[in-house]
Every structure is written in structure tokens, then in C-alpha cells.
């Protein structure tokens, strides 16, 4: 007996409720953009400069006392958060202190860090500082640029590749799904105020990769079925292709999620934000390859006659009442 997550034979109509699913996607995207504009991302020091100090102590973290100890140093905006993690031992009390970039300094001077460390140590002698990171405003500005550049380049490259391998409609569908995934990820990061740093950009690009992986597998089957069933309605072909690949889509998502969830739970707090982004991306990416990429393909229509490539291009699009 085999474990089956998806019944052997499915013939679900994935586009029956397309208005609801597509509407939900659009609403979620608008919501994400709004949250991003209103609340904004919780940028880490990689992107806005400043210093983070990770503290570890055998005594319980008292955020208020930490704040009082640092306040006399007059460092401007200081945020202190306690970090909880199941991997910590009973005597591990960890906090993150973030200090804004100091005016005039490229990177926060060693004196400032030392002053903070001394202030905290006089108050709690057992405190240690396992990590101190400081990024100057010059570098952080550039990091933002490279990050945006990386995402745009990745999307552009994908657009071209799929266009070459398939048709321009496929390419638009895939890219729409990618944009959908990225916007939703930025939305959830704004909503939950998870620290957004350089590693999250890596996660974003992996989401791009993963979502694409999924979309391409579905599209590959669509292309095959379009050749096979020349007379069938595009809507039916799409639905059939999604049904045929459904088992694989779910299997891969589940194995990837299994791996990611174990990393999320056991991998420590340092990469938790990063892993969260990927888990979210896998879920959203799987959804979008069906309900966004394929739906867009349905709206745009596809050239049906694959036996004579490039002849009559432009007047052979399927006439679909979507």
C-alpha cells in the first residue's frame, strides 16, 4: 500500500472558481502593497546601516533595564528585543540590540560598541556578546541596490528563458506568478515585522526559483497536451495538465516543506527568518503556479498549432471565453 496524498485519478476543474481565486490573489497583492506602504519592512542593518549586538546572559533578559543602561550613551534610536528559541538551553537568555547608524560615522565606531558593552556588563556581569555586526550607510545603500538588481535580473532572465523554450504567453504567466509570490512575501514580512536582511533576498530569489520550477513543470505538461489534444478547449487542456501533474506538485512541495519545517524548528534563531521566507514561498509558489500562472495563460490564449511553428502566428490564438 502506498501513501498517496492525491487520489490516483483526479479531474478537478481548477478554473471553476477562477474569479474567486484570481480575485483573492489580486486582493492579497493589493493588501501586501498597502501594508508595505503603511507599515513598511523591518529592515535589518544590512539595508539601513547601524549596529546589532547579540547578547547572551545566564540571567533573564530585562529589556527595560538594558534600555536604561544604554540610554545615557545617547545613541539615538535603539531597539532591544529578546530572542526566544527552542534550541536554547535553560541558561541561555539572548537579546538583540540594534543601534541606528551614527551621524558622520561610516561604520559604528569600536568606542560606541565598547561603551554599550561596558554599560551592559556593569549591570549584568555574566553577559557576553557572541555577535557584533556593524554596517555603514554607504554599503547598506549599495546592498539595497544590488538586492533589487538581483531580483529584477532573475525575473528578466526567467522571462527570456521561458519565452525561448515556450511562448511569450507562458513567459508572462510565469513572471506574473513570480511577481505575485514576491509581493506576497514582502507583504507578510511587513505584516509580521520579521527582520528583512540580506539573507532574505537570497530566500526571495529561491522562491523565484522554486515557484518557477513548479510553473515550468505544469507548463511543460500543458505544451505536451496542447500537441496531443488539438481539438480540446484550452481551459480543459490546462485543467487536465494541472490534474496530471498534481500528484508531483504536492509530493515535491511536501518533501521540500518537510525539510524546511525541520530547519525552521531546529535550525536556530539566526536563520529562522530566512527559512520562514522559504516556507511561505513554497506554499505561495505552489498556489501561484496553478492559480496565477495558468490562469494568466488562459486569459492570454495560446497558439494551438504546434506542428507548423511560427506560421500564421497572430491569428491562431484560441478563442476562450474566460
Amino acid at each position, binding site marked *: 500500500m502506498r501513501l498517496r496524498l492525491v487520489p490516483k485519478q483526479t479531474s478537478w476543474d481548477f478554473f471553476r472558481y477562477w474569479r474567486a481565486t484570481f480575485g483573492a490573489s489580486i486582493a492579497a497583492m493589493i493588501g501586501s502593497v498597502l501594508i508595505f506602504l503603511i507599515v513598511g519592512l523591518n529592515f535589518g542593518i544590512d539595508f539601513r546601516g547601524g549596529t546589532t549586538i547579540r547578547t547572551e546572559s545566564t540571567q533573564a533578559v530585562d529589556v527595560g533595564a538594558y534600555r536604561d543602561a544604554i540610554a545615557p550613551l545617547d545613541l539615538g534610536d535603539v531597539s532591544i528585543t529578546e530572542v526566544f528559541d527552542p534550541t536554547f538551553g535553560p541558561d541561555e537568555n539572548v537579546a538583540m540590540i540594534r543601534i541606528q547608524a551614527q551621524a558622520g560615522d*561610516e*561604520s559604528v565606531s569600536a568606542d560606541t560598541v565598547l561603551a554599550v558593552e561596558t554599560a551592559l556588563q556593569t549591570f549584568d556581569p555574566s553577559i557576553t556578546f557572541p555577535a557584533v555586526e556593524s554596517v555603514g550607510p554607504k554599503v547598506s545603500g549599495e546592498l539595497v541596490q544590488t538586492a533589487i538588481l538581483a531580483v529584477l535580473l532573475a525575473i528578466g532572465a526567467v522571462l527570456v528563458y521561458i519565452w525561448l*523554450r515556450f511562448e511569450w504567453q507562458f513567459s508572462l504567466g510565469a513572471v506574473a506568478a513570480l511577481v505575485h509570490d514576491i509581493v506576497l512575501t514582502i507583504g507578510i514580512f511587513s505584516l509580521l515585522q520579521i527582520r528583512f536582511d540580506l539573507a532574505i533576498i537570497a530566500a526571495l530569489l529561491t522562491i523565484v526559483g*522554486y515557484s518557477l520550477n513548479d510553473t*515550468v513543470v505544469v507548463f511543460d505538461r500543458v505544451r505536451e497536451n496542447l500537441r496531443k489534444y488539438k481539438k480540446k478547449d484550452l481551459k480543459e487542456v490546462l485543467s487536465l495538465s494541472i490534474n496530471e501533474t498534481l500528484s508531483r506538485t504536492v509530493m515535491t512541495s511536501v*518533501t521540500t516543506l518537510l525539510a524546511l519545517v525541520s*530547519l525552521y524548528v531546529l535550525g536556530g534563531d539566526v536563520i529562522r527568518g*530566512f527559512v520562514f521566507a522559504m516556507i511561505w514561498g513554497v506554499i505561495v509558489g505552489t498556489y501561484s503556479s496553478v492559480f496565477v500562472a495558468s490562469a494568466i495563460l488562459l486569459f492570454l490564449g495560446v497558439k494551438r498549432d504546434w506542428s507548423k511553428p511560427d506560421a500564421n502566428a497572430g491569428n491562431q490564438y484560441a478563442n476562450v471565453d474566460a
Partner: protein
Amino acid sequence: MLQIDLWKRILIWCVVAAGLLMAMPNAFYTKVEQHNDAVAEIEVLGETPERLEARSGWPEFLPSSLVNLGLDLRGGAHLLAEVQVEDVYEGRMDALWPEVRDALREARDEVGTIRRQDGPVDELRIRISQPDGLRRAVEIARGLAQPVVSLTGIGSTDIQVAGQGDTLVVSLTDEEKRATDDRTIRQSLEIIRRRVDEVGTREPTIQRQGTDRILIQVPGVGSAAELKALIGTTAQLTFNPVVGRASSADDVAGGRSITLPSIDEPGAFYQLERTPVVTGEELTDAQPSFDQNGRPAVTFRFNPSGARKFGDYTAENIGSPFAIVLDEEVISAPVIQSHIPGGSGIITGNFTIEESTNLAVLLRAGALPAELIFLEERTIGPELGQDSIDAGRIACIVAFAAVLVFMGLSYGLFGIFANIALILNVAMIFGLLSLIGATLTLPGIAGIVLTIGMAVDANVLVFERIREELKTAKGPARAIELGYEKALSAILDANITTFITAAILFAVGSGPVRGFSVTLGLGILTSVFTAIFLTRLMVVMWFERRRPKTIEV
């Protein structure tokens, strides 16, 4: 039907075996690391029983390259420094001045007397007393121009000369500035490397980034501040004639002099001639030592040309003070007692033993040609790194186990094949990482975990396809064959697109992003290899032996 040539089979197994062999040292990380350290030490420092023992801990004939652990896993300090390349222009202009002066003096009849004016530091401004002779002066100065020594600057000269009224303005051309900047960065790199090597930490990464930046990563250093103290000091040592003393920095003696503070006496300043007699560049050696009163000091020795300049100057100026200046601060200003011909001397000041040792290291390694500004500093404690490794390891094992069980349950025997391939796959990732000397970072571990999840994807695509083909095809062998054939385009398209994003991440990313892209990219390569060659080979070998009438996937 299902046929794979013998040579292909051998090749596939050879690739797998090579991957395993390359990955093996990582399973015995500490032992191999000690072995590698011992080998390096024996080469440099000679054999000792302990080192020989450490070396014999790992057999010579086995590969010994390891995956480098990134700073976030091992702990250490990371600095990104920007070299202030413009600093060098001033020195170039100062060096040019005597040359221009001598050349103009020969034409004194036409240009009259000459005098250096103050101006921007990257310009040499010379006023001549006969403005009519300016054209001639410009001509003479142009005659001193040298061709630029660089690949891109061919055909251009190093200085440009302009005349403004009665003033001659000499500055560096853009080509020469570029060539100079490049030299400055290279020199800075070399000097930073020497300084880091002097204190003997292992495997530091010191590399150029972009046009004027240097990335320094040193594992095992206590803090970025320590590292900064070592490499951030310019260590520009000069010996300048003293004009007088002053009580504030604003009290300038006029002419081309500078006023610098004293290190030892707060509030005391010296007025010095701007042009030094000798500089630290002409030192050949510096050692920590003690002066006649038993206080820590640094002895130094000049090279022949430095020794001659120093000797001549001391012979001519007996009885007058001169200042030993380090990075714009006067260490001491002794009075010249006698002619010092040998080219060696001693720097005394209120040093601690540690300070004198450090100063000797800095002087020996040479001065940085320009100041460094630090844009980024990160310190990761070794315990935090170890915690991350432990957490990552547990997460990997659990992820692995979960995926293995899940695949076994879903695909039965074929799932087991995929699982074997998955294990070999991860081993091969480590093998490749060791082979190319890549650095494993925390996001890199995440990349591996992601690969574990996604590596099964290619197999899943094939297995699902075989299931479908079983419904229609004429028998198990045909179904397997068709399954592989038809899944191939989806596998390739899906993985190529992911590989494109990994490549882009590698190209534009830095630090953590790069570490992640490397493992992701390698993971894609190995997982495609295992899916379309390795699992297939296993399936075929099983099929040949059993010849089942029906199969269940």
C-alpha cells in the same frame, strides 16, 4: 529497451565514487584539519613530534581538502574597508616638487624665481616671478611627464600642466590616477596580508572588492576591533625637521610647515617641516627592544639610500631637534647629538611592551599607502558559530529522515532508490564544495536542506510519469523507459531556470547570499545527475536482475 552501455555505467559509478571520496574528509573534520595544519606548519616551522603525530592522524593518500566553514559558523571577524586612494596623490605631488624645481631653476633667466604655493593636495602650484616665462615653464614641466604604466593608459602621460596667470598648476591625469589607484589597492592588499600573516591566524580571506574596497575575513580573531587596530593603522612613519613648538593645532609656523600633536604630552604641539627627511618606506627592519633605561622601544634599520639621507641630515643638523612622526602624531622629538652614519636607530616613547611589539610588526610590514575607512564590521563569537553548526546538523538529519521515510512510503522500492540517490547526492555536494574550496555558511546549510527537499523533485517527476505510463504502455520496461524520456524536458527546464537564479545570486550577491547560491547551484547539478543517471541506473540494474512482469511505483 532499457539499456545502458557498460562504459556509461562505469562512468556513473566512478563519478559517484569520486564524489564520495572527496566528501569523506569532512566526516572527520577535526582530524583532517589538524592534519592539514600540521602539514603546513612542518613546511614552515619544521618537524616536532606533536606535529608529526597530528599529521599521521589522516593518511596521506586520501584527499584532505575540506569545506571551509564561513565566519558565521566558525566565528571570527569580518571587515570591509574602503581605501582612500586620493591620499596617495599628495605624496606624488610632494615627490614631484623637487624635480620640477630643479628643472625650472635651470631656466631661471626666463621664468625668474619660483615658489611653491599652497593649494589642493592633489595639485602642485608653483608661482614664478616672471609671468612672461609661463609658457616656457609649462613646456619644461611637461617635459617631465612620463608615460602611464598600465594596460588601459597606453599613450597617455602621467601629469598634466596648466598655466594660470603667474602660476603653474601640475596635477595627475585621469589615466594616471586610475593606474595609481590600482597600485594603491594592490599595495594595501599586500600590506594587510603581511600584517595579518605576522600575527599568524589561519586561512584569512583578504580580497579586493570592486574598485577601491578590500574584504578581510579572519577566523578565530576575538573581535573586529582587534583586527581593525592591527590593519587599520596606516603606520606612516616619517622623520621631519622641527621648526618650533606650539601650544595649539592652529598655531602654524607659515611656509610649508605643519603642526602636529605630541603623543606623550597632551596639549603639546610641534611645528614641523612638511617634507620629511626620511620615511618608513626606507626601513628594512624593525624589532621591539629596550632603551638604555630598560623601557620598551623599537629599533630600526634603514636601507642604503635611507641610511645615506639620514646620515647626511644628522651630520648637518647636530644640535637641532627632529621629530619621529607616526600617523600624524609626534612620538618623540629628540635633539640630534651626533652624526648617525650606520642607518640604524631607536624609537623611544612611553610604550608598553605590547605597543612596541605591535609598532615593530607594523613598521616591518610596511605602511599602508592610504588610509582605510571601514564600511562594515562583523564579529561572530565561536560559540555562536558552533551552536549554528549543531542546530544545522540536527535540522539536516531530521529533514533527511523525514524525506527518506516519506519517499519510502510513497514510492516503495523506487522510493528506496531515490533515497539512496539522495544520500549520495548530499555526499556529492560536500565533495564538490571541498573540491572547489567553497565556503559553507549558515545560508549555505539552508541551501543544502532546500536541495534535500528539491532533489527528490526530479525523481518524483520521473516516478509520477512512470505511473502514468503504466496505465497505457505495453509493459513495465516500456513504461520506465517512457517515464524517463518524457519527464526529461520538465526536469531540465525546471532545473535550468532554478540554476539561472542561482547563477544570478552568485554574480550579484555577496557574503551570505553567495554562500547560499553556491550550495544551491551545486545541489541542482548533483540532483539532476543523480536523477537522470544514477537512479535510472539503479532502476535498470534492478529490472535486469528481476525481470518483473508488473511493477508498482
